[in-house]
């Protein structure tokens, strides 16, 4: 049991009368690639928003590594180990690529350097900066972005922006990585590349990844387990192939 990283218990939220998500129970084990699938408006991003503290769930609880994080703030949840990307990319557009990643490294304990040390340029400032820079370059290398490290983030092509966002999230050293439609808007070649990268992240960082995706092929090729959502409720859950062949799921997708 101890290898369960994320566990949600009857997680739900309603906006006014609209129940955007209800009774969502998910268990994700360590190093798992877990998919959150469903048609538009099924409440997938809403669940991400609850897990990262953007929205406060109205019912239920969720635990990261056994610790109850329900109702905590966004920064706190990130410090505890959940990092995310956004459906509509949110980079620090006017900062360089490497600075984007370095913002991600900001809170790691090994890169501590307080206001005083920064303002008076004490030795630790230089040590920290150098170490952060080195670490950021290592991360960028994995995503094939090292060459572009001094370009402004907004000048990157779309596919690379997506990658940079993942790199930034990884830089916070999370236990669980949430990817919101990472393949959206990518061409088949880029998607293939992304599948490889995601798998590499899992293996290289021993990362647990929860992702939202529309593309069934992408999900089938990548995820070990999925949860299928429709209108805020769980339709099917379990091993990817089996869940996708669930008649309810087929009905929801094809209609009937």
């Amino acid at each position, binding site marked *: 049991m101890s290898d369960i990283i994320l566990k949600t218990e009857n997680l739900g939220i309603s906006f006014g009368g609209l129940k955007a998500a209800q009774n969502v129970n998910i268990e994700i084990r360590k190093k798992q690639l877990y998919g959150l699938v469903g048609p538009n408006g099924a409440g997938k991003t809403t669940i991400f*928003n609850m897990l990262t503290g953007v929205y406060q769930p109205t019912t239920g609880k969720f635990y990261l590594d056994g610790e109850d994080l329900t109702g905590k703030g966004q920064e706190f949840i990130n410090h505890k180990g959940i990092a995310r990307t956004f459906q509509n990319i949110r980079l620090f557009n006017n900062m360089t690529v490497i600075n984007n990643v370095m913002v991600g490294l900001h809170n790691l304990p090994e890169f501590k350097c307080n206001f005083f040390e920064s303002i008076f340029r004490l030795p630790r400032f230089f040590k920290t900066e150098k170490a952060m820079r080195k670490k950021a370059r290592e991360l960028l290398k994995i995503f094939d972005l090292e060459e572009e490290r001094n370009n402004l983030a907004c000048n990157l092509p779309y596919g690379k922006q997506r990658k940079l966002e993942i790199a930034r999230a990884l830089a916070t050293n999370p236990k669980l990585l949430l990817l919101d439609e990472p393949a959206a808007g990518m061409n088949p070649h880029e998607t293939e590349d992304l599948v490889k990268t995601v798998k590499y992240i899992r293996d290289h960082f021993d990362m647990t990844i929860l992702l939202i995706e529309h593309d069934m092929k992408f999900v089938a090729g990548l995820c070990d387990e999925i949860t299928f959502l429709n209108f805020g409720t769980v339709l099917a859950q379990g091993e990817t192939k089996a869940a996708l062949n669930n008649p309810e799921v087929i009905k929801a997708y094809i209609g009937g």
Partner: protein
Amino acid sequence: MEFIETLISGLSMGSTYAMIALGYTMVYGIAKMLNFAHGDIIMVGGYMIFVTMTAIGNPILGLIAAVLFCMLLGVTIEKVAYKPLRGASPLAVLITAIGMSYLLQSTAQMIFGSAPKMVIVADFGNLQLGELKIPIYTLITLGCSFVIMIALSLFIKYTKVGRAMIAVSEDKGAAQLMGINVNGIITITFAIGSALAAFAGFFMLMKSPSLSNTLGAMPGIKAFTAAVIGGIGSIPGAMVGGVLMGVVEAFSLNVSAIAPYTDAIEFLILIIILLVKPTGILGKVRREKV
């Protein structure tokens, strides 16, 4: 007796603030920007009344000229300064609006000089009701602004343009897809807001005839405060906030111990309201999309 006199003067001042606040709130609701130059439109209206009255001598014609000129000015400012920035950062728009306010003030000072002009619109005298002494202009202000606000509410609720305005304020993109001319609606909003500012200028000159290039600056800021207190973007909110502001001001001015601090008190109320309830009394919570 004094209480009622203060209350009426407060209500009259408040309805003037409400007129200005309506301009702020409508522009904010539809163009999603704080039109800092709005207060200075009042001043321009005041000068227009002054010019017409020295030429023709009729205050009503002065008011009409002011309303027309302000509408034109408001629309021009929108087209020249704000429209190019649509889609740019709100900070940029805000700074441009501040620049516009500055530009109007200094242009007025260039044309009319810095010495205040005396514009005596009309002297109506006082209404004596037993011990109660009420200046007639307060009643005119109250009556006129009441009628204007009712008309505006009806306009927004029942006409096609009004409903289009609501649609644009809810969702610009969706409104455009429904075939609403968003640019046209924004233009109309600026025109209406500026016309209301011209009326406010007229009311203010009725109250005190001194006209200078900073006539609109303070009332503008206070009316914005009123709009925020009422909940920015909300039309009834602007009315409530404006009246509240005027009444607080009148009562505060009436107590000699705190009279000099009146401005500070009003701003303090603003800060407190924003801290306790940032959406104002009647404002809606706007959720940020993530």
